[in-house]
């Protein structure tokens, strides 16, 4: 079965969203694939691969409406069992300021990093926010090249750490 769709559901967080959404999918014969579900800034966000026959909107729209979620559906190419194992980890920590993400990821992209996963948070308080970002990615170039790529930013006071990940298989 290769009939995957990517669902995006976003709305104000409340208990029971995952249970209601996945139950509706299950009851109507949809299979779940890989997913990312996160609370971001008080919203609950779902990115979820589903596969099944026909249109998924009739199944989910009533649930979405009831829970106050916006639903978006994209047909996608791709499949399960195609993970890329990250070999690079990047951490950025610092006082929140405009442009950090663009600068760091811009340099890294140019140096050959493909981002597989990025999560970022603003910690601290409203007065003194702290920006924290973690990236897992894959690059064919040596980790030193990526470190070199962000060294100017480091000199400008952005705390960026690029390190290799050696995945242990046992």
């Amino acid at each position, binding site marked *: 079965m290769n009939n995957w769709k990517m669902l995006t559901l976003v709305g104000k967080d409340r208990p029971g969203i995952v249970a209601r959404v996945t139950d509706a999918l299950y009851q109507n014969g949809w299979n779940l694939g890989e997913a990312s579900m996160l609370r971001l800034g008080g919203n609950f966000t779902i990115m979820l691969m589903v596969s099944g026959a026909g249109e998924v909107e009739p199944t989910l729209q009533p649930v979405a409406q009831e829970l106050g979620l916006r639903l978006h559906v994209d047909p996608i190419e791709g499949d399960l069992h195609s993970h890329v194992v990250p070999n690079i980890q990047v951490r950025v920590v610092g006082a929140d300021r405009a442009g950090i993400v663009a600068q760091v990821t811009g340099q890294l992209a140019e140096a050959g990093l493909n981002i597989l996963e990025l*999560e970022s948070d603003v910690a601290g308080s409203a007065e003194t926010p702290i920006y924290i970002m973690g990236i897992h990615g894959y690059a064919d170039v040596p980790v030193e090249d990526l470190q*070199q790529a962000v060294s100017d930013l*480091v000199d400008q006071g952005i705390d960026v750490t690029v390190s290799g990940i050696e*995945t242990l298989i*046992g």
Partner: protein
Amino acid sequence: MTVLEILKAPDERLKQFSEEVEIFDDELQGFIDDLEETRQAGPGAVGIAAPQVGRLQRVIIVDVSNTKKPVPNHGYMVLINPEITEWNGFEMGREGCLSIPDYTGNVIRATDIKLKAQDRFGNPLEYEMEGFEARAIQHELDHLDGMLFIDRVVSRRTDLFQRKVYKKGASAKK
């Protein structure tokens, strides 16, 4: 020698407790050779444990001498009835497993361990290990107690940020 079949989760045998080895006979020697051949046949495995091929005995093999970046290591080790006697420090690291294809996750392990074991003929062994090799030992030892790394995976989002080198960013810069 034979490449043995690797059990894949959710095979119940991967959740069993393995028994101590008491007889160090020719049959055991043959099994150890097969286990090593099976490890080498897998995709880049630095270790393997007997229960991964369905033999519920406390036998593991670890060899981290071939990593991309060299790490401190004791080379190829066959460890019978291994037992960690001391743990120190902890660190996050990414792991995968021959028994759980196409999945990797972050696991917290001790960074320094002391280990007692026997060699393949029953002679006593003692090691002090660190880092990646210590991680490999803990991963394989878990198999002997019916634990898989997926039982220990922690959320990537709440990753601990452990920096061993307190140098900012580009270490290439001198």
